[in-house]
């Protein structure tokens, strides 16, 4: 079963990359056979994105060799990688917003006819080449990006999370088109978090962990468990349980809800969302990507105004014009993207103390001692490693996330809105965050927690609401919220129907590739 180097289409061996003292990759390898769809897997922080950057020529490895069709080469730029036959498609399309599609094709020297063919295959047959990339919906742009890559017919096509947040019907088409490339002479590197997709189209999977290739798995029935095992490693078993139930007394339904939403709607994304969040409760929000949860949290945090519906805090109707209004009403927001939350060049202390001086009457003299007490207490509560506290950007991802939470803990939390707070951080920090959330609830705070990791619901939440297509489609008690149940609910499945069909039939998903005119009409 072993293959010699010449049989491989692409081979990367001994790739390492170090940033300062941080080792991003130290023994990564990848071997792609002709005609296969090969998954590249790894938990967040495993070095996947660094590996992708090296393969596509965005950065250079410190050591290691890359061979494509038997010819050794390391690309020095994405342009060079393209010319040697490796074309990537990313989650954010690399189309130039201010150029029309035709100019975008010229920029990458893509022939138009094959492009049209592939765009048609992918369900985009009415595309007007003179429309500006800026005016097209994101899903169309991704399809265009993929069609553009297919039109070149590259030796190796690399898809980096390109199906994320793509509507189900399009995802299906993409997978179908990708699957057709199996068995030929060209190959696909497929990167995705969705195990279902991996199982349906991939031949083999390479798994990275802590900068190292830890295994190559043939994707057959039941391979998922093996892949997950490799991704997690031996050291980490299942997560320890988190104590729950302390806030149970406050969850009686006769208590005035801390936060109540009544038929909230926003633009095209959110149609009718109602829920109640009671003091002492952790309410989970579950949704596939792009179902309106971003808009919901933006509204609750005061960043966006709702198109309709009503929002009540402690029984009184509120209307937020600015995040400051939401904060004053006790609603504090922890965004998923730490780059949105942190002052990267400033100290841990300044980051935590930022809300203290936000209001005009606190512009004056800083009461240093009082501030220190609060900040130190928050640092203590969250166990933030303050060795590199001069600049937040030098902290690890987990510590950064703790700082964004500490900012609100320091001032005392009434209602916390957490949007996927454990995204891309290590397991130990995750667990600390779970404990903290439970502690906050036990102390009477209310927490709304959106999570993309379904198992967190049972670990942390008291109950969960499921949003699909901008509507709340289910409410599930924590006891019943195991992963299969949540996933079925997230796909809005009833009974035992197969997953993709129903999702594809949902109204709204078809409009993603609507012509430009409709988009402009909005």
């Amino acid at each position, binding site marked *: 079963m072993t293959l010699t180097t010449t049989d491989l289409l692409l081979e990367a061996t001994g790739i390492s990359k170090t940033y300062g003292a941080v080792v991003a990759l130290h023994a990564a390898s990848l071997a792609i056979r002709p005609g296969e769809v090969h998954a590249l897997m790894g938990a967040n922080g495993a070095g996947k994105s660094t590996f992708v950057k090296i393969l596509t020529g965005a950065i250079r490895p410190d050591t290691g060799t890359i061979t494509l069709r038997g010819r050794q080469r390391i690309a020095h730029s994405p342009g*060079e990688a393209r010319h040697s036959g490796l074309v990537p498609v990313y989650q954010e399309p690399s189309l130039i917003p*201010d150029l029309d599609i035709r100019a975008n094709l010229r920029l990458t020297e893509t022939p138009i006819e094959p492009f049209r063919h592939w765009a048609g295959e992918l369900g985009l047959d009415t595309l007007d080449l*003179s429309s500006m990339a800026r005016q097209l919906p994101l899903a169309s742009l991704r399809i265009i990006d993929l069609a553009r890559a297919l039109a070149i017919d590259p030796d190796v096509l690399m898809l980096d999370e390109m199906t994320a947040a793509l509507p189900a019907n399009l995802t299906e088409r993409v997978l179908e088109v990708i699957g057709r490339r199996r068995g030929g002479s060209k190959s696909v590197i497929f990167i995705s978090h969705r195990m279902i997709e991996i199982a349906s189209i991939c031949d083999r999977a390479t798994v990275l962990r802590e900068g190292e290739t830890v295994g190559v798995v043939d994707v057959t029935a039941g391979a998922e468990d093996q892949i997950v095992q490799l991704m997690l490693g031996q050291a980490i078993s299942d997560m320890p349980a988190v104590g729950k139930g302390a806030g149970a007394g406050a969850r009686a339904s006769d208590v005035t809800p801390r936060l109540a939403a009544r038929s909230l709607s926003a633009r095209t994304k959110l149609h009718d969302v109602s829920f109640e969040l009671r003091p002492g409760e952790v309410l989970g929000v579950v949704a596939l990507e792009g179902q309106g949860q971003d808009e919901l949290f933006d509204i609750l945090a005061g960043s966006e105004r709702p198109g309709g519906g009503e929002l009540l805090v402690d029984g009184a109707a509120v209307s937020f014009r600015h995040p400051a209004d939401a904060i004053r009403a006790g609603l504090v927001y922890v965004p998923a993207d730490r780059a949105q939350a942190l002052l990267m060049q400033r100290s841990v202390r300044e980051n935590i103390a930022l809300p203290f001086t936000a209001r005009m009457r606190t512009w004056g003299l800083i009461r240093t001692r009082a501030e220190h007490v609060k900040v130190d207490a928050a640092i203590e509560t969250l166990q933030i490693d303050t060795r590199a506290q001069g600049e937040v950007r030098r902290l690890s991802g987990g510590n950064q996330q703790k700082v964004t939470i500490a900012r609100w803990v320091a001032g005392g939390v009434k209602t916390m809105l957490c949007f996927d707070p454990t995204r891309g951080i290590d397991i130990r920090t995750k667990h600390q965050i779970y404990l903290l959330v439970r502690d906050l609830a036990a102390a009477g705070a209310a927490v709304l927690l959106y999570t993309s990791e379904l198992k967190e619901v049972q670990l942390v939440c008291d109950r969960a609401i499921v949003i699909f297509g901008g509507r709340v489609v289910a409410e599930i008690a924590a006891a019943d919220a195991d992963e299969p149940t949540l996933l079925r609910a997230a796909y809005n499945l009833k009974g035992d129907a197969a997953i993709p069909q129903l999702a594809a039939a949902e109204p709204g998903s078809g409009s993603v590739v609507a012509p430009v005119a409709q988009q402009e009409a909005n």
Partner: protein
Amino acid sequence: MGASTSRSGGGAAILAAVRRNAWTIGLVVFMALLLVFTKIIQPSYGAAGLQGLGSSVLPLALAAVGQAIVVISGGIDLSIGSMMALTSVVSATMMNEQPEEFAIVVVICVLFLGLAIGAVNGTLAVVTRVPDIVVTLAMSFVWAGCALLVLKTPGGGSAKWLLNLVTGSLGTEWIPRAAVLLIVVVAIIWIPLRRSRLGLSIYAIGSNRLAAFRSGVPVGRTRIAAYMAMGLFAALGGLSLTASTGIGTPVPGPYTLMSVAAVVLGGVSLAGGRGGVFGAVAAVIILQLIRSDITFLNINPNLAVVVQGVILIGVVMIGSLVQIRRARA
């Protein structure tokens, strides 16, 4: 059926093109209205007025074209005034008391000098990774200093035919030579550039640098190329200064900041990637027309500066207000 759809498709294409260039078209219409207005308030304004207008806007128009190219690429050049001063004094010194024919050599040399100093600006910005605004600000000192080294006080000379090139009219007296020159220069340099892959790349890196990089655009080289194109236009601007005044002046004029203002008024986004050079040229002409109208109206001429400032602020404010509203809608 087929014909009707194709016609409506063509109509839609025209409509889309109009919409895409709405700002530039609006500027040209406004410029025409201003010309009519000028004629009304000053009935004697005629061919001579147009010729004067042509030669007075030429240096700034060239600077604005150069600045527009850099701003489209996502940069900004605060040294363009100094570059014009340097190229102007170099050309004036070289042409001083030389035969007329020698001026052709001088023009070619100065154009190459423009390319070279543009390349220096661009290379420094790319290699040091210092923000463009800081690099070019620093280089504005350097080029102004170099201009002073070449010529301490205004002096030198210019070939007669160069002067004739930027003043007077061509064919009928209604077509200023300066306007023809401007159109020819832009047509020779900008239009082929705009249509080339390099031109696309310049727009691409200004619009979304990461996407451009991922699409295989050599970002560093393209930035340098944009600065070189700007250097070329700065050299042309410097030559036009020498030609129109007959001497070289080592002190930078107001061209740096005015070119930025014209570019913004011309519909080029300071964030890069959007707009074109024609809007910037129209904006230069409009600013000059306002200045002369205020003189004709016997209003304190200093108010012209105020009006220019108010227009700059007002237009940009309205523009960003529209954008904010559109983002909310």
